[in-house]
């Protein structure tokens, strides 16, 4: 399989704040889901912004899916425009790239339907719960049919039941369109549940502290969290994370 995007020996240095990332390597195969897990300040969000093209590396090479709508980002907060309906929010990326309003809105409604928000197409963000707003944000990321979906701790602000439901829905959506996904989180179990590959990052500056392959079907079978495979992977990653954090401290 060819790669959708990659970071080659990238380093990011912020003037006055020192080196935030690198050298760091990451290659994403088509349709692959990779979790980046690590403590805050380990550069995982920086790596995501490089892949999104929202900032450039100080050194190294970034290759990314740079076509219009080929890369989508979901932030930790839903980041919806309060003055627009859910449909208008989701239609925004299409309308900005010149798709006719009516067509864009129709696609937006379909995308909202895919994330389970068919009944809330006219709702404003303020009328949505946290989980629903995040679903709308996800619909906006999916509406352009991206090849690469970048998720920056998207479930961090949600309660446990909502985040589990969203995780399953996200994997079900993934199975239809199969975008490559980079899932940034600081939650080890979530990282294991979501990804086929979990990369642990250590801080100061952010580097890879090793990776774990999760060889299990997607979407996850019922009771996946209680399997030995899940437990062992989570344990391995937790230990790696602990030693990486200790080494940095």
């Amino acid at each position, binding site marked *: 399989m060819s790669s959708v995007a990659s970071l080659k020996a990238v380093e990011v240095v912020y003037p006055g704040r020192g080196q935030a990332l690198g050298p760091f390597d990451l290659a994403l195969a088509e349709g692959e889901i990779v979790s980046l897990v690590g403590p805050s300040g380990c550069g995982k969000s920086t790596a995501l912004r490089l892949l999104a093209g929202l900032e450039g590396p100080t050194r190294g090479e970034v290759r990314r899916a740079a076509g219009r709508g080929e890369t989508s980002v979901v932030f930790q907060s839903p980041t919806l425009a309060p003055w627009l309906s859910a449909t208008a929010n989701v239609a925004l990326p299409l*309308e900005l790239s010149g798709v006719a309003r009516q067509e864009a809105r129709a696609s937006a409604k379909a995308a909202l339907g895919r994330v389970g928000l068919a009944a809330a197409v006219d709702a404003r963000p303020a009328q949505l719960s946290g989980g629903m707003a995040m679903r709308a944000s996800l619909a906006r990321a999916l509406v352009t049919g991206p090849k690469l979906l970048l998720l920056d701790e998207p479930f961090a602000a949600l309660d446990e039941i909502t985040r589990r439901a969203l995780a399953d829905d996200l994997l079900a959506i993934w199975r239809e369109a199969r975008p490559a996904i980079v899932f940034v989180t600081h939650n080890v179990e979530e990282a294991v549940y979501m990804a086929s590959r979990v990369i642990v990052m250590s801080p100061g500056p952010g580097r890879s502290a090793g990776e774990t392959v999760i060889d299990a079907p997607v979407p996850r079978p019922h009771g996946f969290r209680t399997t030995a495979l899940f437990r062992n992977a989570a344990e391995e990653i937790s230990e790696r994370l602990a030693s990486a954090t200790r080494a940095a401290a």
Partner: protein
Amino acid sequence: MNRLGFLAPTALIGAILVVWQVACAVLHTPEYLLPPPTAIASALAHNAPKLALSAWRTLAMALEALVAASVFAGLLALMVTLSRTLDQAVRPLAVALQVTPVVAIAPLFVIWAGVDHPDRAIIALAAIVAFFPIFSGTVRGLTSADPDLERLFDLYGARPLQRLTRLRLPSALPFIVEGHKVASGLAIIGAVVAEFVAGSGGAEGLAWRILEAGNRLRTAEMFAAIVTLALMAAVVHVLFQALEKRALVWWRGR
């Protein structure tokens, strides 16, 4: 508003009026010094048409000033947010204009407007006072869009005009509305202050009524004009507050 929210201030005002009335009667204060509330009420009733017309004159000038300030402040705010150099050039001037008391520059404007058109000076002065809250509110609003939404607009490859009309202007709306609310109150104050300085001439606003009554020692009429002014300003304030509330409900969707 709840019942107490209405009753409490009404009771307080009633109590003040009663004490005032009784004090005037007991102490035999001369009416030119402190007229009792009943005398003010009768002055209000007798001069009602004249006061209403004056109130309308002042209000009309304040509103014209508000419109002028809105247009200029809005355009300048837009230009300033598009050009950093212009921002740096304009800021000190805008601040200087804001901190200079309107009374101090009023005589200049009266000279420029000429004796025959004191209303022009009054409108210009009120507009200067109303300018700053609209300007600073709009600038703040235009630069306060959600940074993550700004990033998404980068990612979507939005053109500058799209970013302005679909992100920055809508994000700025609450700030712009609040600026106008503050400016509406200031425009009335500005108009009244300017009327005082402009003196008689052709102006017949509320300030002129106050001056005229004062010159003749008709203190009850003075009070009547002040009460009218306070009522008018309060009504404008309430209207703009309601407008702001409605705008925010529309903006937030609830």
